[in-house]
């Protein structure tokens, strides 16, 4: 029996970048095939070629032994290939149900849209992947994680023979991930071939039957992930051994930097699904990395937004003290002036001007320091940008290149570097390693350790429990906009965090 998918000698060039070069890739029916590689290795590109999104490429594709050449995503869908894209490609103004059935709406006998049936089927699909969302809600109102679940439901609804999942879990917490794995196992049993792309190494061994590693657009190796250790897999991806994944800094922590006391925000115009702080207290000391854990919608993002002053207007109670002084966060400029930096969750929509240069994107928050009287000394800004790029080990061509052409992890570093150039005292990080490859993650962690050692305080929201446990000194768990527990990572593990986040255990953590 021929392979379900056989891609041979695939090549793709973007201007000067060889995204894929002579790549062979084989997927069998009922197989979960992990595709691994650093940011920019060419994983998405390879899969975009398979799913008909990219139509100009070298090489050939065969489905069940029959050669194909797709003219667009519709062709691929007709051939039974569906893809969950890395960037959440949903239409904000349409409802969940409309999004799921976009392009292949269900019709009544008179050719009008059968709204009722679409909503019913959407509800069933969502239930199957473990979410209860009202299918009539506009997608624009959903939080990132929920949107990701909608894209998953949408892909599943296609009943495809080949399902490509490009980082489907980057905004999900462990319980949603577990549900997704259940679905994947179910699909596999039904003979569906699944390509699974993720930078969360612990997921690979759990779900994949086989793994292929790409590096710089080229095939490196293929193996059974259950037979290799994470360290070996990472070495295959990066091309050299990566030492310790997490470098928990055991540096001394200094004075109290941030103190939040019973912070509550009552939005003037409440938005459905938003979980504003509802009585949060926590502290961050200088040199300390404090994690924020919680389930989807626990209110981590909203807390960071409130501290940075970008939450929607409303009445605030409680106190925020920075170095012992009460502050009222009024907005980014105000926060930055006080030494608070913020790295938002979604770098593409909230972080970067994708078509502007790396240079412009790195220096935009710290412009006044590169000249006088509003005139910029170009040499100074270039120097600062170069310095930051070196420090973050940014992989790039020239500072003038558009930041959108960088790989995801490198884009993340640019947002990160921009905040560092403002020389903050307190850094608020929201999922800073979402979609970032292991190598780059290690660098970001190393850097966080370094900065903490120099006295920076960090408040880090993350959905990856290993990351929280590995990087933070302390983790505060949020649930429903309240802090429900606080753990020292020295003596607690992922299980404790998860239990507290889900509210199963009534643990009051060790302070």
């Amino acid at each position, binding site marked *: 029996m021929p392979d379900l998918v056989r891609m041979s000698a695939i090549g793709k060039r973007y201007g000067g970048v060889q995204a894929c070069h002579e790549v062979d890739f084989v997927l069998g029916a009922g197989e979960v095939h992990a595709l691994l590689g650093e940011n920019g290795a060419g994983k998405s590109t390879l899969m975009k070629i398979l799913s008909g*999104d990219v139509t100009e490429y070298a090489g050939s594709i065969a489905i069940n032994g029959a050669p194909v050449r797709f003219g*667009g*995503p*519709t062709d691929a*869908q007709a051939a039974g290939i569906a*893809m969950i*894209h890395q960037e959440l*490609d*949903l*239409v*904000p*103004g*349409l409802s969940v149900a*409309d*999004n799921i059935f*976009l*392009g*292949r*709406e269900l*019709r009544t006998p008179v050719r*009008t*849209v059968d709204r009722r049936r679409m909503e019913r089927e959407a509800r069933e699909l969502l239930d199957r992947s*473990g*979410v*209860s*969302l*009202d299918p009539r*809600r*506009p997608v*624009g*109102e959903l939080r990132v994680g929920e949107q990701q679940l909608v894209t998953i439901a949408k892909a599943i609804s296609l009943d495809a023979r080949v399902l490509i999942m490009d980082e489907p879990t980057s905004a999900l917490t462990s*319980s949603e991930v577990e*549900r997704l794995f259940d679905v994947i196992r179910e699909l596999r049993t039904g003979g569906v071939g699944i390509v699974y792309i993720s930078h969360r190494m612990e997921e690979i061994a759990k779900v994949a039957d086989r793994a292929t590693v790409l590096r710089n657009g080229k095939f490196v190796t293929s193996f059974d992930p259950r037979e290799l250790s994470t360290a070996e897999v990472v070495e295959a991806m990066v091309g050299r051994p990566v030492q310790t994944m997490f470098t928990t800094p055991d540096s001394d922590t200094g004075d109290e930097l941030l103190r939040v006391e019973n912070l509550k925000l009552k939005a003037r*115009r*409440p*938005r*459905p*699904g*938003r*979980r504003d702080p509802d009585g949060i207290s926590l502290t961050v000391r200088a040199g300390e990395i404090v994690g924020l854990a919680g*389930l*989807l*919608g626990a209110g981590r993002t909203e807390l960071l937004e409130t501290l940075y002053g970008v939450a929607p207007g409303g009445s605030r109670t409680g106190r925020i003290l920075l170095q012992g002084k009460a502050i009222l966060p009024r907005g980014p400029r105000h926060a930055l002036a006080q030494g608070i930096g913020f790295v938002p969750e979604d770098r593409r929509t909230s972080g970067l001007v994708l078509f502007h240069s790396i240079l412009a994107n790195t220096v935009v928050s710290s412009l006044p320091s590169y000249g006088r009287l509003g005139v910029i000394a170009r040499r100074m800004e270039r120097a600062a940008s170069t310095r930051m790029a070196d420090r973050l080990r940014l992989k790039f061509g020239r500072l003038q290149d558009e930041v959108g052409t960088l790989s995801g992890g490198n884009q993340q570093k640019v947002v990160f570097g921009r905040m560092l150039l403002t020389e903050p005292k307190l850094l608020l990080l929201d999922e800073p390693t979402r979609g970032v490859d292991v190598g780059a993650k290690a660098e970001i962690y190393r850097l966080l350790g370094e900065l903490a050692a120099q006295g920076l305080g960090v408040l880090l929201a993350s959905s990856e429990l290993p990351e929280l446990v590995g990087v933070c000194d302390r983790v505060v768990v949020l649930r*429903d906009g309240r802090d429900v527990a606080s753990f020292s990572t020295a003596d607690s593990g992922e299980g404790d965090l998860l239990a507290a986040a*889900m*509210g199963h255990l009534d643990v009051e953590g060790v302070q």
Partner: protein
Amino acid sequence: MTDVQDRVAAPAEKTSVAATLFRFQSVFGLIVVFVAAIIFSPRKNGEILFVSADNLANVVRAVSEIGIIAVGMTFVILIGGIDLSVGAVLGLAAVGSAVLMVENDWGFLPSVVLVLAIGLVFGALQGVATAMIGIQSFIVTLAGLQIARGLARIWSGGQGVAIAYGDGPKEAPTSFALLGERTFGGLVPIPVIIFAVVAIAAVVFLRVSAFSRHLYAVGGNEKAARLSGVPVVRVKIAVFAICGLLASLAGIVHAVQLNQGSPNDGIGYELDAIAAVVIGGTSLAGGRGSVAGTVAGALLLGVLNNILALNNIDSNIQLLIKGLVIVAAAALQRLRPTS
């Protein structure tokens, strides 16, 4: 997981009242202006002139052309585009119907069909230029405006073509004249009925058709639409074609109302139509808005014009008041919860 369900369901319920109110927000402005019009209306013999039946009929008649155009414009703006050529296409269509029926002695139906087809094709060509070549619609239709105006001037020889009715040569068929008459006891002008039919058809169409989902998708997130298999190029071309078609329908209505087709008809109508659409709550960024809002927006402008005229306000002061009301109506839209 049940935990999640509760969490989401509860606030959704709570805001749905507000949501319902906001859904009809575009009508708020209309109601406010309507009430203001009643208050400020001149009275004669105890009668409030503004709300008299024939005045209201006039108000709607006066906005029927802009309204028809604005419905098409809503489609274009929903996909994130804009069409500046509608006023010129109206002029072209007005000239076309007059020339065909009067100078070429064509019949009613062939003339109307050809004129509508011209608008459709003109719009579709603009759609091709933006969808396939990828030029911004603002600039395509700015050029289209000049081209349509030029064609209208050439076709008419630069002068308005008068329409006389009758069976003789150089006379338009009397069936055409009916389009400009009034019905229902001489009260409701046919142009109003045409406008109403167009608006209702558009509302129903947007509600029930798959095409409308595609249209919102193209305006809301073009890439997502493409990846979902939405025929983006075809949707865009179709939308510009519809807009051109409706503009030429408005041109026919214009010609029959004025008994003349002039190449200078419809100058500046594009801005009025866009104002109606935006006041009606449709976002110029695309993906969000409704035809019902547009109709409310067009009526708002009509009521405003009428009440200013009834009170004989100085034309310069009228400009100021209209500008301020447009801004106020647009500001009202900003109360919408999602920005």
